[in-house]
Structure formats: structure tokens, C-alpha cells
């Protein structure tokens, strides 16, 4: 352990902070409190263990890390064997890892652990990377004296969308139970029954319900907890590991892609304490199925005689170039590109299309970097020492799940204020302040005295809300973490994919340094933001629209405007992985490669640029966005710069959209205010097309406060119609006491919710109509 556990206020007669002891005869010094198992690991001596895990509290359950110790605390008894995971090192302690008593103790423990184990290694997914296999070979007795009948337990129990449990392989180390308890505070997996009948299971045998089930498969030291997606797919010695970064959300958790031949078979965590603390969420871990999805676009499409038809890249790019230069054009999207690709798109827009009508903000998020609204930046690890956190109408669980794990730990010792119309911190204590969206700025201002008194306050916000809310947040003076709506929102903003920004946070109109790198004059007038661009398109002021990795028909808060704009614009180019609702309207569709199919860098929510590798090839007919941009730029006679322009000394501020992606007004009685809030498994990016995520995909979910729903005849699971702005959308009721009464919550990016306007009526679908509809 490198950290000093005695840091903090020192007692007057503090004992020395280090202790000296010997391991297998050699002297070492360790910080006081270091566990023997950590000490032995640090000096490179082998020691077996199952229940011990560096990210969990010690428990001493498996008894296999037995070592012989002798020294002052046990001097009167002579040498004894004890568990290394629960015993700290003492001054003068002599630790023997390979003495005969230690070896014998480990042998006997291993023999007991295998008594009821089925020894089905040849058909077990864990075979080849199983600690039970490895340690039994290295330290076990080699044969069993057990002649009695083994206790038979459940095999291949289906624990829900991702997990499979083989109870008979379990050695009850309780890593999963402790992870659920200590890390998640969820207890999806618990111990049941007693003695030799003890098993791991979900509480009442229901499916595993949380977002972080997959970490259990990596914590499990044996083959008890495995995943549906990897079951019988590969052997560890067959797979090729490629380190990369998850681009499912803006946190950028580090991961390792495992390939068998050309296919991804699984994703594993790759611990980065400063970002992910070693964990992955289930969307990140299992959301690789889209790489091989049948609906992937594998060839460019060009509209001929009203139909989208397959075309060559040459045909598609020359059609795109001609259409985009026929009149005023604008660019939407970019939040899912790599840093390099965002820069290329920024340059292509300014020099190829001669416009500042560029915006990555095709959803609710108004800005990405705290500096863009004049605030100071928090580090992710600041959460580990904050004493006051404001969660501003933001759900880390739905928007950047692994950040929520860290926040749950923070909430154990610090005050977390969960402010907004929907309860967002579910698995930890927090101070809930419920209020309507239009009261947020006032409520934030009321927190000023508390923030002034705090030692190390912090605000977590997803950047939704207008300039007034931003001003209120700025007045708190606390550092800010901005959870991004799109994985690389931060990179897009830094590349100047905004109407008033150039790369490096130079203001439009003051970009001499950018112009120098790009070697050309830049358009000087600030452009229009996403709403402005869509309005211009709808009213016929734009000739062409280039949509890159975005689906405004789903993601833009005013779906009706997006709809009119896409209908009215004479020429539409869409670059995406799938034929999304937006792509279906296009005149030219350019098939792109996905996040795991191209190399580059991606910036996470604190602006840390992390390298991503090209792990798989992707469809043969698709190209990386960067390559498409390069070829399109060539068709537009623009040479893309190799290097990024330098950063501005003082970052230019970004102008926030007035509406802020939010709708005014709640409701009561028959009319309810409509909120669009992120849900992890909703949306039309890759999740909607991913067969691995199909069982958990969220569509048509209507969240309501239980209060007053009886009167409307709406119970849990009821089919309902939502009526608003002349549109009707069908959904299913989920009662949620965390929703402010008078409001209804639909998933942002779920299709149809953004077409309903600010207020809706909810009516039960008559039973007969429900049957007829089926």
C-alpha cells in the first residue's frame, strides 16, 4: 500500500507510521496497518486468495491465504498459521509463506473447498483463468479423501438479462455479496440458507435488477457467476486483449476488448482509479453487440427517384459535396466523434462550407466544459474528499453510471443534495429537494450560504437549463463536473463544433491562431445554434444540412421543430452507423464505423483525452468518420490540418440556448407537465440496435408519481396514451414516488416523447383497444 493510513490529525504520542518485519527471511518495512496479504503481494511472493480483493473490505471467509506468523503479539504461543487477509503486519513479525504448517493448512482448506465442487472445468467458462483451478494445482493436495455424496446445487440459473449462476461451482468467498453491499449498497446478490447448504442468490429469486451486474463476473474467482454473452464463446487462451476506452457515455471508463478471431467476445474492466475506480456498467460491458448487428449500414446510400439506393463511395461523396455547396449549409452533431474527427469536422464546416452554423448540441446539454461558462473544473476524484455535493437535476446513474458508484461512497460521509423534479440518487442517503424545473435557479441560489460554509463543495450538472440557471450555479463558486449527454461532447466543444467557438476555445471572429494553423480566412460572424439551424432549415433559409452521428428526431427536445426542419431542407446528408429515423429522411447516407472500430482519442467529462484503439474492423463498406471527412474535404478542395490549433489563453464563453432544452410549466389534474430525462438503456444511438441490450432496452416508459393515479385509472404496467401538441404517443406506466407530482417523465432520446409539447394528458388505453392493437 502506498497510501499512509495514519494521515490526518496526529495523536500526541503517535506510534511510528511504519513497521519492520520479515517475509520468508527477508526484512521489509511497511506502513502500519498493512495487511499481510498486501505485504506479501507487494514483495512479489505468491499467495493464494479468493475472498480477499483489493477493492473490497477483508472478511476472512475462504481461509486459503494461510501464512505462518511468529513474533511479539504471538510470542508466547510460538509460530501459528493465520489468514493473511485479516492480520496486519506488526513490528518484528516473522512471516513464512512456504513453511510446512502454512502449506499443510492451505492444502487442507483447498481440499475442503473442492468437496462439493463439480470439477466440470472442461465445460466451464472460467477454465484457464480460474483461481480455483490455478491454486489447487499450485497448493492443493492433488487428491480428495471425500468419498461421500456431493451436495448438488443449481446449475446455470438464469439471473436476468446478463448473469448466469452455477451455484455448485461457488466457493462462498462472498466477493459478489460484499461488492453488492459495500460498493453498490444494492444487495442484488445475497447469501441464503445455512451451513453446507448456503448458496448465493438474488433476494427472492427475481432477476438481477441493477446496472452493474457484470462486475460480478470479474470479481468471481471461480466459474459461478458468468455472463450470457460470453457463455461457451471462447477460452481465455484463445482471446486477444486490446486496451481501449468505453464510449457509451462521457465518463470514459477504461476497458479491455477481448477478441476471438475478428469478433468481440467480451469487454473487461481495466482499472483506472482516477476515472472508473475499476468498475464498468452493464451498458458499457455488454453494449458491443451493435458491432455485428444486422442493421449496420455497410454501403453508402443515395436517394434516386425518391428511394435510398446503394451507391459507391465516389458517387455518394460527390453527391454530398455538390449538395452541401449548392447554397447555405449547416452542420449538426459531432458529440460521438473522436477528438481528431471533431477537429476535422470543425475545419470542414468553416473552410469547406464557409459557415459557423455548426452545433454539436442536438439534445438538452448546453455546454460541456465548466470553463465555457466561466466556472472552475472539478476532478472526478474530488468526489472522494468533497463534503457537500449538489446533484443538479442530473442522474449520474442514467447518464454516467460508474460515476454514481463513486457518488454513493461520497454520500456515506458527505451531504449530497439531490435537487430537481426527479429523484436521482437512489442507493444512498441524500437530501432530496424536489422542485419544478423553472424553480431550479431560485433553489440553487438558496444554497449559497451552505456552499460558502463548505470546505470542499462540488456541483454535478448535465448542462441542461438556460443562462439563468448557469448564472445561479456560477454564484455558488464551486467546481463543476459536467456529465455529458454524448460520449465526446467535451471533445466536440473543444474542437469548436459550436456557433460561437473555434477549436481551442477561441471565439469566432477572433481566431487568428486557428486561421494560421488552417492556412485560410475563417467566416467571422457567429453562427446559429441547433435550434437556430433547425428554424432556418424549416423556414427555407438553409439549402443543406449535414448531420454527423446524431439523430435530432429523437434527441432534440423540440421534436416537432426537428421534424419540420428535416422535411423542409432541400438537401440532407446523414453520417451514422444505422439507418436512424433521421437517416431515413436523408438524400445521402454515409455509413460510419463505431467507437470500437476506429482509433483516435476521446475526451471524457473532465476533458481528459484518452486513446482508443481500433479493436475490430467493422462492416467492410463503412469508413471511419475521420476518413469520410477527409474524403469529403478533398471533394470540397479543403486540406485538413494535421495538428490542432493551440488553446486560447482565456477560454471564450459559449452562449447557452435560451430555452436550455427545457420546457416550462408543470400541471395538475388532467394536464401534466412533461419532462424528458435520460435513461441508460433508452435512445437511438447504438443501444437501440444492440442485440445484447435488447432485454433491457427502455421504450415507451411513462414515469408517474403514484399520487392521484388511481383516479385516472393508471396502475403499474398499464398501457396509456399521452396526448399533447396534436400528437399521441403510446407507453407503459411505471409508478415512481421519486417523480414530482404533476409531472410525467419520459426517457430522453426515446422516440416520440419530444413531439408532445410541454403539457400532456395521460389516458388509459381501453382494454379492447389494447387487444385490437396487438
Amino acid at each position, binding site marked *: 500500500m502506498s497510501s499512509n493510513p495514519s494521515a490526518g490529525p496526529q495523536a500526541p504520542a503517535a506510534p511510528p507510521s511504519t513497521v519492520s518485519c520479515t517475509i520468508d527471511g527477508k526484512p521489509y518495512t511497511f506502513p502500519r496497518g498493512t495487511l499481510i496479504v498486501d505485504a506479501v503481494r507487494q514483495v512479489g511472493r505468491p499467495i493464494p486468495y479468493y475472498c480477499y480483493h483489493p477493492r473490497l473490505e477483508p472478511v476472512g471467509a475462504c481461509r486459503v491465504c494461510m501464512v505462518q506468523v511468529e513474533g511479539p503479539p504471538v510470542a508466547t504461543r510460538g509460530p501459528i498459521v493465520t489468514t493473511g487477509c485479516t492480520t496486519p503486519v506488526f513490528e518484528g513479525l516473522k512471516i513464512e509463506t512456504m513453511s510446512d504448517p502454512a502449506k499443510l493448512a492451505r492444502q487442507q482448506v483447498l481440499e475442503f473447498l473442492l468437496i462439493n465442487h463439480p470439477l466440470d472445468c472442461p465445460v466451464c467458462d472460467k477454465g484457464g483463468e480460474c483461481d480455483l483451478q490455478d491454486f489447487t494445482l499450485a497448493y492443493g493436495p492433488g487428491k480428495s479423501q471425500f468419498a461421500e455424496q456431493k451436495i448438488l446445487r443449481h446449475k446455470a440459473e438464469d439471473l436476468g438479462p446478463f448473469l448466469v449462476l452455477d451455484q455448485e461451482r461457488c466457493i462462498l468467498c462472498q466477493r459478489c455479496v460484499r461488492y453488492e453491499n459495500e460498493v453498490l449498497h*444494492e*444487495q*442484488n*446478490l*445475497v*447469501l*441464503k*440458507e*445455512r451451513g453446507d447448504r448456503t448458496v448465493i442468490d*438474488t*433476494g*427472492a429469486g427475481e432477476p438481477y435488477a441493477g446496472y452493474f451486474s457484470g462486475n460480478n463476473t470479474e470479481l468471481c474467482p471461480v466459474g459461478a457467476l458468468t455472463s450470457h454473452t460470453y457463455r461457451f464463446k471462447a477460452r481465455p487462451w484463445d482471446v486477444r486483449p486490446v486496451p481501449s476506452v468505453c464510449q457509451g457515455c462521457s465518463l470514459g471508463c477504461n476497458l479491455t476488448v477481448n477478441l476471438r478471431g475478428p469478433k468481440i467476445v467480451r469487454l473487461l474492466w481495466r482499472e483506472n482509479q482516477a476515472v472508473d475506480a475499476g468498475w464498468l456498467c452493464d451498458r458499457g460491458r455488454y453494449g458491443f453487440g451493435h458491432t455485428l448487428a444486422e442493421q449496420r449500414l455497410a454501403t453508402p446510400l443515395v436517394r434516386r427517384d425518391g428511394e435510398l439506393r446503394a451507391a459507391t463511395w465516389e458517387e455518394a461523396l460527390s453527391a454530398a459535396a455538390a449538395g452541401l455547396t449548392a447554397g447555405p449549409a449547416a452542420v449538426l452533431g459531432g458529440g460521438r466523434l473522436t477528438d481528431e474527427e471533431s477537429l476535422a469536422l470543425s475545419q470542414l464546416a468553416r473552410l469547406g462550407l464557409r459557415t459557423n452554423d455548426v452545433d454539436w448540441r442536438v439534445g438538452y446539454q448546453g455546454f460541456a466544459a465548466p470553463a465555457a461558462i466561466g466556472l472552475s473544473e472539478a476532478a472526478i476524484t474530488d468526489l472522494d474528499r468533497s463534503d457537500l455535493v449538489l446533484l443538479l437535476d442530473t442522474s449520474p446513474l442514467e447518464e454516467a453510471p460508474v460515476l454514481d458508484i463513486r457518488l454513493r461512497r461520497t454520500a456515506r460521509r458527505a451531504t449530497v443534495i439531490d435537487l430537481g423534479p426527479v429523484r436521482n440518487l437512489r442507493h444512498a442517503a441524500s437530501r432530496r429537494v424536489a422542485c419544478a424545473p423553472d424553480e431550479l435557479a431560485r433553489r440553487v441560489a438558496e444554497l449559497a450560504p451552505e456552499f460558502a460554509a463548505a470546505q470542499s463543495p462540488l456541483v454535478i450538472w448535465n448542462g441542461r437549463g438556460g443562462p439563468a440557471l448557469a448564472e445561479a450555479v456560477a454564484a455558488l463558486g464551486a467546481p463543476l463536473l459536467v456529465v455529458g449527454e454524448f460520449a465526446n461532447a467535451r471533445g466536440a466543444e473543444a474542437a469548436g463544433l459550436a456557433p460561437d467557438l473555434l477549436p481551442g476555445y477561441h471565439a469566432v471572429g477572433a481566431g487568428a491562431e486557428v486561421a494560421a494553423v488552417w492556412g485560410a480566412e475563417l467566416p467571422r460572424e457567429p453562427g446559429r445554434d441547433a435550434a437556430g439551424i433547425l428554424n432556418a432549415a424549416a423556414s427555407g433559409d438553409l439549402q443543406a444540412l449535414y448531420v454527423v452521428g446524431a439523430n435530432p428526431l429523437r434527441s432534440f427536445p423540440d421534436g416537432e421543430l426537428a421534424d419540420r426542419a428535416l422535411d423542409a431542407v432541400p438537401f440532407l446528408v446523414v453520417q451514422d452507423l444505422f439507418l436512424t429515423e433521421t437517416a431515413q429522411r436523408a438524400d445521402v447516407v454515409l455509413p460510419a464505423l463505431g467507437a470500437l472500430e476506429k482509433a483516435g482519442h476521446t475526451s471524457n467529462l473532465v476533458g481528459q483525452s484518452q486513446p482508443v484503439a481500433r479493436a475490430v474492423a467493422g462492416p467492410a463498406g463503412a469508413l471511419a468518420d475521420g476518413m469520410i471527412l477527409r474524403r469529403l474535404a478533398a471533394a470540397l478542395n479543403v486540406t485538413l490540418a494535421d495538428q490542432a490549433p493551440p488553446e486560447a489563453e482565456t477560454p471564450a464563453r459559449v452562449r447557452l440556448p435560451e430555452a436550455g432544452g427545457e420546457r416550462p410549466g408543470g400541471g395538475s389534474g388532467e394536464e401534466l407537465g412533461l419532462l424528458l430525462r435520460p435513461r441508460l438503456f433508452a435512445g437511438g444511438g447504438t443501444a437501440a440496435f444492440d442485440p445484447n441490450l435488447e432485454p433491457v432496452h427502455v421504450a415507451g416508459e411513462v414515469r408517474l408519481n403514484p399520487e392521484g393515479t388511481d383516479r385516472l385509472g393508471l396502475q403499474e404496467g398499464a398501457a396509456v396514451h399521452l396526448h399533447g401538441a396534436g400528437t399521441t404517443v403510446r407507453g407503459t406506466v411505471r409508478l415512481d414516488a421519486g417523480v414530482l407530482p404533476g409531472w410525467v417523465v419520459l426517457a430522453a432520446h426515446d422516440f416520440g416523447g419530444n413531439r408532445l409539447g410541454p403539457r400532456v394528458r395521460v389516458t388509459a388505453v381501453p382494454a379492447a383497444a389494447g387487444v385490437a392493437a396487438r
Partner: protein
Amino acid sequence: MPLDLETARAAVARYPSPRSALLTLLWQAQEADGWVTPQTVETVAELLGLTASDVESVLSFYSMYRRTPPATRRLQVCRSLACAMKGAEEILEHVRAETGVGPGETAPDGSFSVEVVECLAACDHAPSCLWNERMEGPLDKQGALARLRGQGGDPA
């Protein structure tokens, strides 16, 4: 009659940490309902600020919490040394032979159940038993059978 919330809250208040009252509350609920219902698990979890899974985990550890509605007539026979020597096994065998209901089983119509338990500390009454949770003994095989069949006076 479900768990009395007032009594339950009083029990919670006796402990420094709410979780410590878990066994007590489950016991109170079982006394009220005759068994621990799924609703009890939810209620107790909410009262103590635990998850239902956590309550389920503890509940499954202890064998004296009933997870199904109890039979109308319940016989628990001691099988520890003194009672075994005085014929407890023989009584259990007789009941099984006559009714088909063995130790740990309930009659298909739910009218009675038979269980074995460890020492009831009533060796002087061997073979001793609990009739509907009330201590009795010595037990004889004809009497046991008759009463299980609802003949010869049910205990209160």
C-alpha cells in the same frame, strides 16, 4: 392480523442500530400471521431501512421462521437422546405409515404437519413434543395419530 407497527417500532427503538431488530420483528410477524408472508418481508425491510434481499437472506438462514402458511394442527416431536430412547422415532414412523406424512411434511389438505425438533428441555416427559407450540408429553402413538386427525380434542 399482520405485524403491529407500533409494537414493531418499539422493538426497533430498543437497539442502537435498527438492523438489530430484524429477528425480533420477523418473530413478531410470525406470531401475528402464523408465518412470514412476502408482505412481511417488504414491511420489515422498509421499517429497518434494509433491502428485501437482505431480509430474505437472514430469514433463510433460520429454520424456525415459517415460509408457508402453517397447518391447522402442528406436531413437533423431540428427537434428542432421552426422547429417542423413549420411542420418538417409533411414533414418527407410525404417523408416517398411517397417514403418509413424514417428518418435515404437511398433509396435502393442510390439516396437519409433523416436524422434528432438538431437545425441548422436558426429558422428564419423554417423549415430549409441542402441540401447536405448547409443551406436552409423554406422547404416545395412538394419541398422536388421533389428534393429528382432529379426533380427541384439539389443543387451543
